[in-house]
């Protein structure tokens, strides 16, 4: 509908430069430039390399997004930008860009929370989000379980990883198995030919003694060590490493914990909607397992398509659209980039 707000979203919190355009809940364009190839040889994202790439990519990415959406900056009602959490220097490029666009085009700017944007992006595919909902956000940079009461004003963190992010664990195990970076898609592919029950890897923070203090928290460091020990024992014995079985069993352990805790949060709080987002939500086993187990409890799982799960500008635009519709005031022009922005802050 033409009278719904037209929102531009800018994302630069990690290694993807994203610009998205949405009208209401309708995605008009989602342009992306990634510096992932520049980081591959380092086995992880190098912050300064990412920041330099954002500066080079922001103007052409904006150009592509506007062209694809068939709009100009003058048509836009507001500009939303990821203000945190993320890599400080990378965030700053996006925030400064958003302000440059806002000042030049005389538009309001909203500095928004990256994690809340991962939740909001689902509205582009599945429409308005029933509240309250539980959100599971899993990527290379974050692993969080949230209670979403009011996406426009604040979400309640229930738990988070106490060591590695879920996506980081995928990257490290991929490296151990000689698979490329980022590891998620390669583990997923290898695992399809493997037996998920071949090796019993540990499920972190699921024992009764851990649940008291860490019911909704995650830990993947013990799992990572267990996989490394198992693989190195094989290598020492001069036996071949069954890569597919290791990948499948590792992936099963990660998904088992993620889905188990997310559904526990739904049942305990009497909530019927689970949203999954972040790069790890693109994992095929996670999606399948969540849907199977949720169905048994009458819980609806909402997962956006893989292209919207990873970091992008559309998710930021989607959250911006939600904020404008909810009548939230825009940010001030001196809004800072906040690398440690808390989840309780949806916009600054």
């Amino acid at each position, binding site marked *: 509908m033409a009278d719904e707000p037209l929102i531009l979203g800018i994302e630069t919190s990690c290694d993807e430069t994203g610009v998205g355009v949405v009208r209401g809940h309708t995605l008009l364009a989602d342009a992306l430039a990634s510096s992932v190839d520049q980081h591959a040889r380092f086995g992880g994202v190098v912050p300064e390399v990412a920041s330099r790439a954002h500066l080079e990519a922001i103007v052409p990415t904006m150009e592509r997004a506007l062209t694809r959406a068939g709009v100009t900056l003058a048509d836009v009602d507001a500009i939303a930008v990821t203000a945190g959490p993320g890599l400080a220097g990378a965030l700053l490029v996006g925030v400064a*860009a958003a302000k440059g666009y806002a*000042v030049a085009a005389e538009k309001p700017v909203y500095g928004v929370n990256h994690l809340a944007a991962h939740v909001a992006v689902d509205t582009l595919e599945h429409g308005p989000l029933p509240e309250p909902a539980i959100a599971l956000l899993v990527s290379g940079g974050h692993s969080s379980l949230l209670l979403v009461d009011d996406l426009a004003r604040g979400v309640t963190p229930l738990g988070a990883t106490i060591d590695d992010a879920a996506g980081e664990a995928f990257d490290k195990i991929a490296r151990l198995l000689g698979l490329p970076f980022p590891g998620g898609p390669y583990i997923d592919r290898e695992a399809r030919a493997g037996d998920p029950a071949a090796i019993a890897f540990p499920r972190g923070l699921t024992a009764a003694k851990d649940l008291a203090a860490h019911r909704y928290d995650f830990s993947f460091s013990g799992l990572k*060590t267990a996989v490394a020990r198992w693989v190195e024992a094989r290598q020492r014995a001069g036996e071949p490493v069954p890569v597919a079985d290791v990948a499948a069993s590792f992936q099963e352990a990660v998904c088992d914990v993620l889905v188990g805790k997310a559904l526990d949060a739904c049942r305990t709080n009497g909530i019927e909607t689970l949203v999954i987002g972040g790069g790890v939500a693109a994992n095929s086993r996670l999606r399948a397992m969540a849907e199977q187990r949720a169905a048994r409890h009458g819980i609806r799982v909402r997962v956006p398509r893989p292209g919207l799960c990873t970091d992008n500008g559309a998710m930021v635009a989607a959250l911006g659209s939600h904020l404008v519709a909810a009548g939230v005031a825009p940010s001030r*022009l001196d809004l800072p980039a906040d690398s440690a922005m808390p989840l309780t802050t949806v916009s600054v």
Partner: protein
Amino acid sequence: MGVRIGWFIVLVLVVDSSTPAVTAALVEVTASAVTTRAHRCTVDARAHGELLAPQVDAVLADTGARPADLGAIVAGLGPGPFTGLRVGLVTAATMGQVLGIPAYGVCSLDAIGYPAAAGEPVLAASDARRREIYWAVYDGAGQRLVGPEVGAPTAAAEQARALAVTAAVGDGAHRYADALGLPLRPEPRYPDATALATLAAERIRAGAPGDPLTPLYLRRPDAVAATARKPVLP
């Protein structure tokens, strides 16, 4: 451009964030003059992202100008600490894109060395952190002879003396005055907005196409490549 010379006025936005001095200015460039109409400068090494956009907004408001009245943008390309430097360049690039006007880059040290060079060669320096300076040497007319470079103050001083430099200028020169051992000129301490516009004035008057605004980083990113098969176990 089909403009009668006597009527030629371009309203230019100048930004520089290569030093702790976050600068925005509105400058009028005519066929014969470069005149600063509004100027905001805040010295704060840690808040470039917060300060610059409100200052741009303020210099526009000070003169009653709208963004659409701008005809060009000039941005200091550094060298300077990367995170802050990028704020000015991304601001210039995005505003130029929206307004459809050219953005020109000028070496930020030139906006210290050019106005400071009064007949004798001068060393211009800004703080590069890690006990180093960004520096360049200018002749008596303000033309850059050497640089921009990054390095230890003593090494810069040695090269400067070989070029018969008699004075040093800029915040980096003040900070490392002892190591440089050169007499100091007090002004400008930071890149001068009027000088930035002056150094781009020929291109502005000619209506030259804008620059890609690539920062003068001078240093590679800090990044340690992970070894091919680093063990995951400690």
